[in-house]
């Protein structure tokens, strides 16, 4: 134990020096740019290097698979079965036509073969339906050196394993502590900053400071996740008195949007750390936080939102109308609440590149803390944000049609599949109205003809 003493002080001083160096580097290269909103381009370089490594890794795996004479598993995001996009009427007519030798215009009311259509459609949905696959992480075509996305692990050679091991070392021992330090800095600055600003008297100066404190802290958080974001069409950014609407993939969406614009947020009051952050933020800026009991009351929510947007000087509200996290391959039904208020809607499309780290939060699989840890041990979060031109509800449209129009615009821009299903379907049963529509279509076919017959 005595022998350790002289080394002890050496180790301590070495530790001290390295920590100081680390913090200076941190400050200069990461925090200072975050405060002023500039970038050195380090992250983009990092991204390019990683892409090259991933391509190499996938090639080696394919080679390994070929040696063993196996097929490499290729995931298909668009579905595993070949589908014909024909309507109910067309298909049933075709089925009947192929079965009978009678003339085309002598369409009978009901055929025993009609059942085939419903039977096959039903089986197709059992093999592959549009909704179930949207709630699990998107599968990648090439491997990104993360064990969580690997489906072909028996084809990994020694070289790849070493590379993977190196990746683990870098991610967990270098990037993770760095990111946690940054996140800690960002969050504490946010809490302290907004509380301090909150003590100032209301006015232009307070607004100015509040905006910059928020922006600065969100930018630090963006770097804490190594998020590489490309913003498109920034001229369409949401303005005061409007509502900003975006597709939802994870809680990180908020950080991504809020680091490029000053929004009023809407949400439920949480406990714990989130609650502390929320209470601090609302001192500096009029965010709209609801108590748990108030959330159930749709009218109350609508009333408070309407009051907010009617004041044209108030900040744009940030809302995610899907109501739940989807895996970023599709956009699901938008809840009509935010579209009934009558304000200008600024749609925003967010598309993540899952190659560097999948941002989708599968809330049934991972809790918030596990999710954040997974985010911080990925390579990076890469995404594109498109600001779409503002939309307003037209005279003949109702809220639902308006919501669907906005949803289609977002889906088209982000390259996502536009689905009519409700994201809440993963938790609730579907409504009977959809089934009635199918029944109506079919009834028209068999009874409609009957009526024609009786007339002639």
């Amino acid at each position, binding site marked *: 134990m005595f022998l350790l003493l002289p080394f002890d002080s050496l180790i301590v001083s070495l530790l001290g020096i390295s920590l100081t160096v680390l913090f200076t580097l941190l400050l200069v290269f990461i925090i200072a740019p975050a405060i002023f909103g500039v970038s050195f381009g380090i992250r983009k370089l990092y991204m390019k290097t990683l892409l090259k490594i991933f391509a190499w890794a996938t090639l080696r795996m394919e080679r390994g698979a070929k040696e063993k004479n196996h097929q490499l598993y290729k995931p298909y995001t668009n579905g595993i079965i070949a589908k014909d996009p024909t309507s109910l009427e067309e298909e049933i007519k075709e089925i009947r036509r192929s079965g009978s030798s009678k003339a085309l215009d002598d369409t009978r009311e009901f055929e025993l073969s009609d059942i085939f259509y419903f039977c096959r459609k*039903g089986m197709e949905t059992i093999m592959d339906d549009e909704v179930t696959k949207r709630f699990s992480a998107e599968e990648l075509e090439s491997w990104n050196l993360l064990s969580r996305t690997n489906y072909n692990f028996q084809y990994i050679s020694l070289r790849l394993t070493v590379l993977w091991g190196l990746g683990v070392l870098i991610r967990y021992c270098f990037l993770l502590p760095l990111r946690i330090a940054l996140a800690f800095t960002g969050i504490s600055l946010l809490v302290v900053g907004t509380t301090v600003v909150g003590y100032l008297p209301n006015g232009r100066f307070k607004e100015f400071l509040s905006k910059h404190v928020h922006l600065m802290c969100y930018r630090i958080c963006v770097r804490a996740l190594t998020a590489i974001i490309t913003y498109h069409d920034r001229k369409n950014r949401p303005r005061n008195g409007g509502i900003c609407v975006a597709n939802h993939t994870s809680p990180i969406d908020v950080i991504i949007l809020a680091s490029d614009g000053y929004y009023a947020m809407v949400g439920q009051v949480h406990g714990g750390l989130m609650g502390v952050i929320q209470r601090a933020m609302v001192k500096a800026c009029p965010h709209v936080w609801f108590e748990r009991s108030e959330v159930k009351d749709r009218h109350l929510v609508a009333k408070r939102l309407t009051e907010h947007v009617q004041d044209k000087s108030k900040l744009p509200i940030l809302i995610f109308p899907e109501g739940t996290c989807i895996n970023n391959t599709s956009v699901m039904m938008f809840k009509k609440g935010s579209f009934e208020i009558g304000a200008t809607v600024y749609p925003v499309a967010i598309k993540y590149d899952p190659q560097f780290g999948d941002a989708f939060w599968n809330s049934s699989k991972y809790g918030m803390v596990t999710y954040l840890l997974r985010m911080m041990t990925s390579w990076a979060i890469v995404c594109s944000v498109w600001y779409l031109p503002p939309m307003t509800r037209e005279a003949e449209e109702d809220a639902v049609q308006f919501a669907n129009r906005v949803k289609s615009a977002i889906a088209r821009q982000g390259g996502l599949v536009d689905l009519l299903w409700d994201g809440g379907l993963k938790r609730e049963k579907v409504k009977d109205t959809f089934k009635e529509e199918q029944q109506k279509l079919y009834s028209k076919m*068999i009874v409609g003809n009957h009526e024609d017959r009786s007339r002639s």
Partner: protein
Amino acid sequence: MGSRSSHAARIPDVDSIQRETGFSQASLLRLYHRFRALDRNKKGYLSRVDLQEIGALAVNPLGDRIIDSFFPDGSLQLDFPGFVRVLAHFRPVDVEDHGNRDPQEPEPLNSRMNKLRFAFQLYDLDRDGKISRHEMLQVLRLMVGVQVTEEQLESIADRTVQEADEDGDGAVSFLEFTKSLEKMNIEQKMSIRILK
């Protein structure tokens, strides 16, 4: 490493399933992933509820009947072999099969007869080998919901049974069923192709 495997060896009894259903290893792998995705609570088998939660199936007028075909004889758990066995009926017909099939071996699950038999049992609830007028009415009612009156539906059912019924017993047997559909391209209409 990784929660999923690309190797079909992970599937239990993969060889016997392959022989029985005729699916390729690649298709079986995809279906296995699908089975696991539907099994939300990771029980290892599927229950009726798991299938009912598929939105697009719940809006299919024959949704319940289709789910019933997966749970024959009142069973409550659907394991992977059972799942694939039903889906095998919808495998596209192999053109090479017709020539070299060993007559001793049982008919492949996706043969024309077996596809017809599958469709027949969607009608024939009580499994007595005949579609009675009552059973015909029940299926019709499922497909049209409340859109058609009882009288109209009854006349349609009567007409259909009359036309298909040859021996005059007021019900459609399996042979009469196949006869009335003999010209139909069943192979194509009751087939689902899995992408390689």
